């Protein structure tokens, strides 16, 4: 898709040049040269080719803080995604973090490799080969290996999901055949790889006979909910976030939790919050786990700030600054624990925390929940 088409699709010509996007952008506050408003302006002035070569194309966090507030409802993150798609078509070198290792892992999965990614699941609880509920594990087994050195136990989240589902009498299907959901590839502009991954996942899930697919990763959830139907039409199964299930289970008294965690605060992941509009579910759970001990950060819900980097693209000093400010904001609430609901937020914020001298721990909501189950 060329730049004119991208501008048409995201209606950037409605831009009022008002500066709300740049004023809201967490990146613009730490890297003043980056300005969503000026990017849109450049595109409208026909300077798109310049944009495609610019490193700034990879500075956008696609966190949607700008789109949430844009008075002209211009979907800037989507515009950036489309530009990246065009850039990758033209062979522009992308800016990846971790030397592109994670992108390599994703791409490898389209080459027919045999994964042994669910062995741990059988130890964690009861899982099945086929059934009504499919648990889409996502990248956690890979993250476990890559990020354990910074003290993040990604896999414990997946294990806890299985425990919670088992607790409600659900024996979920997990599959070694499952591939990466393609979220990062899509946002990196590698739409062909995304399609291959997605097509494969749909086949695996349909073969399992599942009527619903449960996610804990907000990226997987949002990608299945929004982008899979866009590319492949009707999915034929329900896409469910585990927090919705849990909230229902708590309401029905199927799940009983102890109220004693805290003091804690909550970081809204952008895919879960601004994109999937899930704000209340996690808060309902947190209020059950830590009544009166759950404190909101100054910037919460729609106003929440990104964890500093996304799609394993561009992670620089600006990202670190965003993360450190966010952690300081969390600490200012008086919380001992910062709860996140996205495995990547947990990794990114932990990475910054390791270099800071503040007394705070970061936990995934699923893990706190699992600890509190009676």
């Amino acid at each position, binding site marked *: 898709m060329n730049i004119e088409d991208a501008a048409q699709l995201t209606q950037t010509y409605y831009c009022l040049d*008002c*500066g709300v996007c*740049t*004023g*809201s952008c967490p990146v613009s506050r730490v890297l003043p040269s980056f*300005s969503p408003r000026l990017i849109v302006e450049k595109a409208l002035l026909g300077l798109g080719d310049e944009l495609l070569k610019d490193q700034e194309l990879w500075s956008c966090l696609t966190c949607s803080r700008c789109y949430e507030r844009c*008075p002209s409802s211009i979907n800037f993150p989507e515009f950036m995604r489309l530009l990246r798609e065009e850039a990758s078509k033209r062979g522009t070198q992308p800016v990846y973090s971790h030397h592109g290792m994670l992108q390599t892992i994703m791409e490898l999965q389209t080459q027919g490799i045999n994964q042994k990614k669910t062995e741990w699941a059988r130890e964690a609880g009861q899982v099945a080969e086929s059934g009504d509920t499919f648990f889409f594990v996502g990248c956690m087994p890979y993250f476990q290996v890559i990020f354990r050195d910074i003290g993040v136990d990604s896999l414990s989240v997946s294990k806890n999901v299985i425990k919670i589902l088992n607790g409600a009498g659900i024996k979920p299907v997990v599959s070694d055949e499952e591939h990466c959901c393609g979220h990062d590839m899509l946002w990196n502009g590698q739409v062909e790889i995304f399609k291959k991954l997605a097509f494969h996942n749909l086949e695996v899930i349909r073969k399992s006979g599942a009527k619903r697919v449960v996610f804990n990763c907000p990226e997987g959830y949002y990608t299945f909910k929004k982008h899979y139907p866009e590319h492949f039409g009707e999915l034929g199964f329900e896409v469910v976030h585990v927090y919705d299930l849990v909230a229902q289970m708590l309401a029905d008294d199927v799940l009983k939790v102890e109220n004693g965690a805290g003091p804690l605060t909550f970081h809204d992941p952008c895919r879960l919050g601004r994109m999937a509009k899930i704000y209340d579910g996690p808060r309902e759970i947190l209020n059950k786990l830590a009544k009166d001990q759950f404190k909101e950060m100054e910037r919460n819900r*729609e106003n929440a700030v990104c964890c500093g980097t996304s799609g394993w693209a561009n992670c620089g000093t600006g990202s670190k600054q965003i993360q450190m400010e966010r952690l300081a904001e969390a600490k200012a609430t008086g919380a001992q624990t910062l709860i996140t609901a996205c495995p990547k937020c947990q990794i990114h914020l932990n990475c910054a925390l390791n270099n800071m001298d503040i007394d705070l721990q970061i936990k995934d909501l699923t893990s706190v929940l699992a600890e509190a189950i009676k």
Partner: protein
Amino acid sequence: MLDAGRHPKINLLSYCEVEEVSGEVGAFQVKVRKKARYVNEDLCTGCGACVEKCPTTVKDTYNEGLGERTAIYKYFPQGIPSTHCIDAENCRQLGQGKKCGICAKVCQANAIDFEQQDQMLDLEVGAVVLATGYDVFDPSVIPEYAYDRIDNVVTAMEFERLLSASGPTHGHLDRPSELALRAEVAVLEKDLNKVSRQIDRLEEKHGKKTAEFLKEFEAGKAGEDEDFERWATLAEKQTAAEKVLAPLKKREAAAQTAKNLAFIQCVGSRDFRFNRFCSSYCCMHSVKEAMIAHEHDNQTTSSIFCMDLRAVGRGFEEYKLRGGKSSNIKYVRGRVAEITEDEAHNPIVWYESTTSRQVDHETFDLVILATACVPSAGTPKLADLMGVELDQNGFFKTDPFAPLDTTRPGIFVCGCAQGPMDIPESVAQASSAAARAAEVVATVPKAAAGGGE
């Protein structure tokens, strides 16, 4: 307004609601419910003795909830007809079944009538003019402006009341956070005074000071008296209350009026999420408010954040420039991205100045949101009753070449019921609509004599 009230050919029916409209142009039959005021308006002289004595206070909606009014009240001082009304829901006698009737006792005109009922009026009219005005957009739906979380972020209408000599602060720019503090102190002081009075009586009865008594009491030498336990508890309460009050009073004494103001334009207007239209009057309104604030206290400085300051009208541009030159107004090009708050309840405004291309933030004493002009809440219901259509924005639909004609012959509209406009334009439309209505009444022979619009 007074002219209309005194006009021999204008029959003013206030505090009424239209319930049914039938017929056609030249001969409409309108059923109107005249709501019970519980005050006989023919007898009431508007002296206000009842208001002085009424024991019930509630939030004053005319002052945007920033002040209080009594259960018997007059909506605003210049209201026509100059009479009072009892808010039945909050009245002790009417709404809460208690014995009160103080207003009836003090009313020298005997105008209070607790037995008054709603009355149905049948009117025969030739034409109808809809002049139902507008509502102020509720900015609490904009999460980034934190209107519902930050005390010192107010709407333009709230600011208008703060700045008004007849408003809750008599025109001084006391900040809402300070008003809340003052209210808190007042409640605590009332409780403390009650305790202190009881202690005073005990001191008098026993002929010694509390300090002296406590010393004896703690040493066990006070002797036996039924009052002593209570006295000790009261003394303890007094000390605790004074301890809570002291820092609050210190803060209250240090409080300053707002001197550094930010006006944020297009709040709920020119925004696809809420209203796509421009509310047209807010730019000039903000300039006017900033100028009046500066007149009231010439230490005041104001920043007006806007995309483009729409000074469209005769002398408007000059007025805007004068504000910049002589009233300490700074115009910033950039729509505000978000508002946060510091520990002293000062709002912090985050924005990109698009002229300098820099993201910046600035702390203000008070932030005023230039809120959009939206159709009043009852508009859809009234449109249904009248059998007229609404436009895409929810205002009464008119034709560009007949801007006062609704979609039903004989029913006209003027002012903000038709769309956002400022006062001169509303006045012009009102005269115009009256003339359109007169055309109908004059040319249709069936038109009922004596009917009024």
